[in-house]
């Protein structure tokens, strides 16, 4: 799985960081960074949770 955050949508609400701290970090600029672009399978549930909870729906998941 590949994880992308759309910087146009993200507004630093940090739900992603709370759900999957291994994968997301919100920076000083209040934009979420993806720490692991292709997270291992064991993080899948957490990443999907982050994508589901993101208030702006800024997290895109690709299966490529």
């Amino acid at each position: 799985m590949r994880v992308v955050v759309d910087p146009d949508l993200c507004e630093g609400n940090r739900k992603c960081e709370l759900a999957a701290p291994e994968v997301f970090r919100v920076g000083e600029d209040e934009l979420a960074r993806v720490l692991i672009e292709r997270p291992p399978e064991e993080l899948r549930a957490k990443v999907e949770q982050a994508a589901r909870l993101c208030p702006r729906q800024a997290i895109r998941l690709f299966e490529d």
Partner: protein
Amino acid sequence: MTQATLHPSEIRLDDPAIFEEGRAHEVFRILRREAPVHWTPETENVKGFWSLTKYEDIVHVSRNPQIFSSERGITSFEPKEPDLNDVGTRLYGKMIITMDPPRHVRMRRLVNKGFTPRAVAAWEPHIREITNHILDGIAKKGEADFVTEVAALLPLAVICEIMGVPREDWEKMFQYTNQVLGGGDPEFQTDVPEELRGTPEGARQQINLGTAKMFQYFATKLAEHRAQPKEDLVQVLLESEVDGQKLTDEDILWFCFLLILAGNETTRNAIAGGLLALLEHPEEKQKILDNPGIMPIATEEIVRWTSPVLHMARVAKEDVEIRGVTIRKGERVVMWYPSANRDEDIFPDPYRFDVTRQPNDHIAFGIGEHYCLGANFARLEIRVMFEELFRRFPDIELAGPPARLRSTFIGGIKHLPVRFTPEA
């Protein structure tokens, strides 16, 4: 009563009495179970609409703005023959809340830096000061109308400060907001002839008049800001560009109109409805008195429980199916937030008001493209209000029944009599 056996076909979600009389949750419970995609048929002058009451369906629609458009208005109400002079029609496509991508995100980005968690956190000391100033106003009386004397004043003050509206004009903004968003309630139809009050025509006229006054007010502001630049959101908008183009005055006026309305009526009702819930559930109030540190979590439950925005609507841009029901291109789809936030499939024990509820993934602020811009302000205002209110008046109690707003759009409380031990 035989309400429990109400059939979905007998339910009309354009009937404000359902909300005014506090029957909405009973109705939503039936719809979620029996008709989660429900049709309210047209009337003589107004089109019919679909209602969604399940959490997952509402998330799905919110997530797909390319299919479910906001451009043609975000309320359930669509006249068959729209009058182009009515605000309800004129606002199509004009404000971020009635814009679709890609323009939506470009406009939203002009202002969103002022609404992020960090930007909003910087306002906390000031919001606490305003809150205490408001509470000073009732402290010696021992009784108050909690809505008009407390709950309404904080969001009003905050949005006015963000927008650079000076204190002497706050009362005016309060009236205009009531007239636009509460325009369907006879209590606020003060500008229309007596015989029209309480009628659809009365509502139409009052909403148009309230809007005209708001626009006139901000048009004067724009002129002032051009003559002498200030440090507020109006100035930010004046200096903004989208694709190398300055915003037009009309763009800016609609932005101001939206912010004042959205910033006011909603948070007011979360605070008023929150107090009502806490006083009706004394054991929950006690938890906050014992440990004010739970207020951030309690705030989420207050917002879930009250869900002050009752609905937002979308228009289908193509034929689509939801739960096997075909929605035709051009039809209106209405998302009922109070219902999503009591959905048995998402929230364990959804009818329990629990100030320690976690997780609490309510969608009272919407989700996705149009996720509430002011959510962080709303949260901060609610938290600070209850921290200060319970610190100063821990024995506050109801002194009479609440009066609810007659509206299918805003879940409002107009009056809430309370009493408490006055401060010396």
